[in-house]
């Protein structure tokens, strides 16, 4: 039992709206950009501007949600911002980074037959990826996990890293096109994404409907304004996870499914035309 008997300036990190830069975030962003551009230079390949834009966008979003004020607010003050950061890392940063990697670069980073390739191949099989993603989703949103890990800086970083890595693993089979790397196609892809969107409703519903604050971290944090209610914050976090997370996924599912349906329709039309031509011939 950790309690405080003396109200002091030391116990709480009093929130101020004074900009506090996190140098590490900018160093990490620079390292990721350097990694991408350096790999192209070493391979003697030209940088595809379309893919570079995606990589830069992914890194930029990651930096924005990790930098002040969102990083600090999400790590220790507001559950809504914490969930917003989770959504950003999982549903924005991970797919942007993953879709920015050309096949030749993926082959370089995960060479066929290497241990990394084997591990990635196993982790990104769709049933395993689904399991990993949801285990991280549920595990890192349990009150005991938040109240144990996020009270330490390294723990907070570990949670962020787990969200990003689980996002990369989960999007891998749905986004990559390489069949030899376990890429899945419609309608399995739609089912795969839909299953996760449904499972996401579970923690989101707990957040939205719990009458008491679930996380001591956010409940006992210095309030940003007087009259701040951690239950309202938590409800908003649940709605955010449901609406924004669900909406993002269902948009991807709908777009993918419509593309697949159009391709199927075109293929069917082509087949009928070919059959008609051969019958006429």
């Amino acid at each position, binding site marked *: *039992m*950790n*309690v*405080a*008997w*003396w*109200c*002091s*300036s*030391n*116990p*709480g*990190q*009093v*929130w*101020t709206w*004074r900009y506090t830069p*996190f*140098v*590490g*975030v900018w*160093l*990490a962003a620079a*390292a990721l950009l*350097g*990694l991408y551009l350096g790999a192209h230079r*070493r391979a003697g390949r030209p940088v595809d501007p379309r893919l570079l834009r995606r990589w830069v966008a992914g890194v930029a979003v990651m930096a924005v949600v*990790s930098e*002040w004020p969102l*990083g*600090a607010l999400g790590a*220790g003050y507001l559950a809504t911002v914490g969930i917003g950061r989770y959504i950003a890392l999982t549903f924005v940063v991970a797919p942007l980074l993953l879709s920015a990697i050309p096949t030749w670069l993926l082959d370089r980073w995960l060479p066929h037959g290497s241990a990394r390739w084997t591990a990635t191949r196993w982790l990104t099989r769709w049933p395993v990826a689904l399991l990993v993603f949801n285990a991280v989703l549920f595990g890192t949103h349990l009150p005991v996990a938040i*109240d144990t890990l996020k*009270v*330490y*800086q*390294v*723990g*907070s*970083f*570990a949670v*962020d*890293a787990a969200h990003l890595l689980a996002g990369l693993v989960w999007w891998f089979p749905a986004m990559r096109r390489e069949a030899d790397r376990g890429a899945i196609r419609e309608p399995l892809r739609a089912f795969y994404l839909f299953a996760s969107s449904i499972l996401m409703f579970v923690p989101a519903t707990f957040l939205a409907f719990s*009458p*008491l*604050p679930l*996380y*001591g*971290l956010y*409940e*006992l*944090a*210095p*309030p940003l304004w*007087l*009259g*701040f*209610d*951690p*239950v309202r914050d938590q409800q908003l976090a649940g709605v955010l996870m449901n609406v924004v997370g669900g909406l993002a996924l269902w948009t991807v599912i709908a777009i993918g499914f419509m593309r697949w349906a159009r391709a199927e329709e075109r293929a069917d039309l082509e087949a009928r035309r070919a059959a008609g031509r051969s019958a006429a011939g």
Partner: protein
Amino acid sequence: MRRTGRTGRAALLVVAALVVAGCSTAPSSSTALSAQGLTQADDGWYGLPLTVERSLPDVTLTTTSGRPFRLDTELAGGPTLLFFGYSSCPDICPVHLASIASAMEQTRTRYDQVRVVFVSVDPARDTPERIDTFLDHFDDRMIGLHAALPVVEEALTQLDLPGPIVEGPDPRGEGDLIGHPAQVIGFDAEGRARRVWPFGTRRSDWVADLPRIVADWSA
């Protein structure tokens, strides 16, 4: 050569990750460390029992409407939760009061069943209007009291608690931060101090304890 390049890249990433971890934003404060809340004792209470006998102090303070208010006589006859704090307090005071107000509402406990009393330890800044405005953020039925610092210190002394200490400038630029006891003290209808709730008490702890206060401590 190529191996060296890969190792260098990996090292760079590790360093970057560690720097990010080092500069990460989670509060390393006792506010956060208190996140586990209190533990329920065998008797079902979350509030911690007092081992020494203490009573409501026999000091006279002033209500925000200017009426003299002697703690031991005015509060006799029903359970009381007493808290010493100040309206500029950035963390513990508003969190405590918000938790109590919300738990009172959730358990449908009336303020005439359990009186919630806030005594300012910052008479220089806490005018009656300011105390009222502060308490209105939680519940305007809470009783706000103030007095000259020696009177407040006398009340704290009678409860075996240390007096307030100026601890330095508030990072929000709102004057000084003041150190003061962080526990809420619970008194029964006869004015005896029965239990305390230090900071770290969660709303769920209050929801469990408030019905017991009404049931066991009322006259």
